[in-house]
C-alpha cells in the first residue's frame, strides 16, 4: 500500500505543474462521470432498449425460427472459445505455462459478470436468461479445453482447425437463410446486430483474399494485370462508400442478366467487399514492401517457384507486418456497415431509426444511440483483442521470450 501511494505520487504529482494538470484532469473526469451517471441512472429511460432488445439483436426474424439463431450463437461461442484457447496457449506442448494468463482471467470474469447481469438488466424472461448463461458457460468451457488440450493435438489437426471457421460460416448461412430442410427466411426479415455482423463478416472474409490478389497484381510484371489493379484500387479509393452503395443498388440490376442480380442484402455485402478489398490491398502492399528483396532471392536460389516463394516466404512475413493496419481496416469496415441503413437495410442503425420513429419511444434517442455505441465498441474491442493475440502468436521474437 505504501509503495502504491509512493508510485501514484511519483507519477501524478512529480512536480507542481504535473500536480496541477492531474487535479484539473481529475476534476474534468469526475464532473463528466458524475454527469453521465446522473443521466444513465436518473433521467434515462431504458425501457426503450428493454422492450426492443430482440429487435436490436435479430430484426424481424420470425419467432418460431429463432431457435436456429440460438444454435448458431452456441456454435459461435464454441468456436470463439476454441480460438481464444488456441491463440493464448503456447504452441509447444512441453511449454504450456499458465492456462489462464492474468488478462484472460480478467476477460473471463468480465464475460461471466456480463452474462449474469445483462440479461437481468434487460429484464429478459427466465428461459432466455438461462440460455445466455449456458452459452457463456459453453464459451468458457471450450476456452479451458482448448487451452488445456489444444497444444497437445497432432500438428496436422492443429493446421486444419482454422478451416473450421469458413465451414462454420457456411453452416451459419444455412441456419440464417434456411434450406437443406429448414424453411427459408427471406433476407428482408433479417436485421439488427445479426445483419450488421453478417454483412461485416462476409466482407471481411472475402475482401482478404481479394485484397492480397490485388496487392500482388499491383506488383506484377504483367502490365495489364498491374495497371488493372492500380486502376481498380485508385478508382475505389477515390469514391465515397455511400455513392458506391447507391451505385450497387441501382446498377447491378442493369448490369447482370434478369434475375441474376442478388438480393439487396447481398448486393450491399458485395459492394462492401469490393470497397474494403481496395483498402486492404494497400495495407498488404505496405507489408510486401517491408520484406527485404533478399528473402525472395534466397527462396528462388533454393529452387522454389515464384508461387512457392510467395506462399511460404514472402506473404507470411508481409501479412504479419500488415496485420495491424488490416485489422484497422476491418474495424472501420464494421463501422461502415451503418451506412447500409441509408440504402434501406435494417442493420443496427436502421433498426434503431425505426425504433426511434415509434411514437411510444419519442425522445429516447440518447438511450438508443448509447446502446448502439456500446454494441459497436464491444465488437471492435473483440476484433482488436483477437488481432493482438494473433500478432503475438505470429511474432517469433515474442514467442521466444515467452518460451
Amino acid at each position: 500500500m505504501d509503495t502504491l501511494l509512493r508510485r501514484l505520487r511519483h507519477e501524478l504529482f512529480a512536480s507542481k505543474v504535473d500536480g496541477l494538470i492531474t487535479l484539473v484532469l481529475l476534476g474534468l473526469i469526475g464532473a463528466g462521470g458524475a454527469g453521465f451517471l446522473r443521466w444513465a441512472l436518473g433521467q434515462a429511460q431504458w425501457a426503450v432498449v428493454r422492450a426492443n432488445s430482440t429487435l436490436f439483436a435479430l430484426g424481424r426474424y420470425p419467432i418460431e425460427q429463432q431457435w436456429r439463431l440460438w444454435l448458431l450463437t452456441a456454435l459461435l461461442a464454441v468456436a470463439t472459445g476454441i480460438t481464444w484457447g488456441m491463440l493464448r496457449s503456447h504452441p509447444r506442448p512441453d511449454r504450456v505455462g499458465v492456462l489462464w494468463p492474468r488478462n484472460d482471467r480478467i476477460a473471463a470474469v468480465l464475460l461471466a459478470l456480463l452474462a449474469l447481469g445483462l440479461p437481468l438488466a434487460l429484464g429478459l424472461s427466465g428461459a432466455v436468461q438461462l440460455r445466455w448463461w449456458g452459452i457463456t458457460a459453453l464459451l468458457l468451457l471450450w476456452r479451458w479445453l482448448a487451452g488445456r488440450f489444444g497444444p497437445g493435438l497432432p500438428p496436422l489437426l492443429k493446421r486444419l482447425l482454422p478451416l473450421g471457421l469458413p465451414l462454420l460460416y457456411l453452416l451459419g448461412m444455412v441456419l440464417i437463410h434456411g434450406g437443406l430442410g429448414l424453411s427459408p427466411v427471406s433476407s428482408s426479415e433479417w436485421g439488427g446486430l445479426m445483419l450488421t455482423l453478417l454483412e461485416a463478416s462476409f466482407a471481411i472474409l472475402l475482401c482478404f483474399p481479394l485484397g492480397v490478389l490485388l496487392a500482388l497484381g499491383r506488383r506484377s510484371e504483367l502490365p495489364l494485370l498491374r495497371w488493372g489493379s492500380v486502376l481498380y484500387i485508385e478508382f475505389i479509393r477515390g469514391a465515397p462508400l455511400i455513392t458506391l452503395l447507391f451505385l450497387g443498388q441501382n446498377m447491378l440490376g442493369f448490369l447482370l442478366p434478369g434475375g441474376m442480380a442478388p438480393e439487396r442484402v447481398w448486393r450491399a455485402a458485395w459492394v462492401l467487399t469490393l470497397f474494403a478489398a481496395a483498402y486492404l490491398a494497400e495495407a498488404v502492399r505496405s507489408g510486401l514492401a517491408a520484406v527485404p528483396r533478399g528473402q525472395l532471392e534466397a527462396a528462388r536460389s533454393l529452387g522454389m517457384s515464384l508461387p512457392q516463394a510467395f506462399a511460404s516466404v514472402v506473404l507470411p512475413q508481409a501479412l504479419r507486418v500488415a496485420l495491424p493496419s488490416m485489422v484497422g481496416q476491418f474495424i472501420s469496415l464494421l463501422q461502415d456497415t451503418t451506412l447500409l441503413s441509408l440504402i434501406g437495410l435494417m442493420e443496427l442503425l436502421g433498426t434503431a431509426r425505426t425504433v426511434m420513429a415509434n411514437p411510444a419511444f419519442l425522445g429516447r434517442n440518447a438511450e438508443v444511440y448509447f446502446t448502439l455505441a456500446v454494441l459497436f465498441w464491444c465488437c471492435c474491442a473483440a476484433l482488436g483483442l483477437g488481432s493482438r493475440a494473433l500478432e503475438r502468436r505470429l511474432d517469433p521474437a515474442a514467442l521466444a521470450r515467452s518460451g
Partner: protein
Amino acid sequence: MSPTSSRSPAPTTGSGDLMIEARGVEKWYPNGFHALRGCDLTVQRGEVVVIMGPSGSGKSTFIRTFNALEDFQKGSITVDGIALTNDLRQIDAIRREVGMVFQQFNLFPHLTVLDNLCLAPVLVRKRPKAEVKEQAMALLRRVGIAEQASKFPGQLSGGQQQRVAIARALCMEPRILLFDEPTSALDPEMVREVLDVMLSLAAEHITMVVVTHEVKFARQVASRVVLMAEGEVVEVADPETFFTNPSQERSRRFLDQIL
C-alpha cells in the same frame, strides 16, 4: 587472359567435369550502366574458384548470373550441362543444383533454424519431411549449431546465422555452391567460424565459386583466383602466382591496396 592450369584435386569422372562455362557475358543495367563487359570463366568439378576485385567491379553481379538472379544481354552461360536461357523451367532446374550463400544471410526470419533448412527440400524436391529433418540435423551438427535448431534466426549471432545459411544451401544437395561475400557483413571475431566451415567444404571437393576479400582463405583453398575490375575478368591464376607474381598491372595495383 586464358585460365592458367588449375591444380584441382577433384576426382575426374569423364565428360561431366565442366560445371560452369561462361563465355563473353555482357550485362547492362536498365539505367545503361555496363556492369559486365565480356566475362569468361570456366569452373571444373571440385574446384574452388575465388573471385576478388575492388567494389563495383561486377564480381557479385557475375556470380549472380550463374543462377539467374541477374539476367545478361550477351554471351552464354552453361551450368552443369544446362544452358541458361529465358526458359523458366531451365532456370528452376539450374537453381535446384546451384546453392547460394548471401552476404546478408537472408535466412527466413519467420521459420525456425530447422524449418529454414527443411522448407526447400520438402517443397521443391518433394522429399518426405522426416527424412529431410534427419539430414538437416546432421548438417546443423556439421556446422556446429545443432543445439540451436528450434531457435529463430533473429536469436542467433551473425556467424551462426551464416553457418545456418550454408547448411540451408547444402540441404538441397547442390552440385555447386556460390558464395557472395559470405563474411563481409560479419563482426571480425565471427569471420573465422564461417571460413572454417567453408574450408571443410573445400576439403570435400565441393565445387565452389567464392566472392571474397579473405586473402588467407584464397591462398589456403583456391584452385584458381580470378581478379575482376570494371566489369572485366582481368586475370585468372593459381593463388601462388596471383599473390606473389601477378601478370597484370591492374592485379598488382589491387594487391598493393589490400595486402
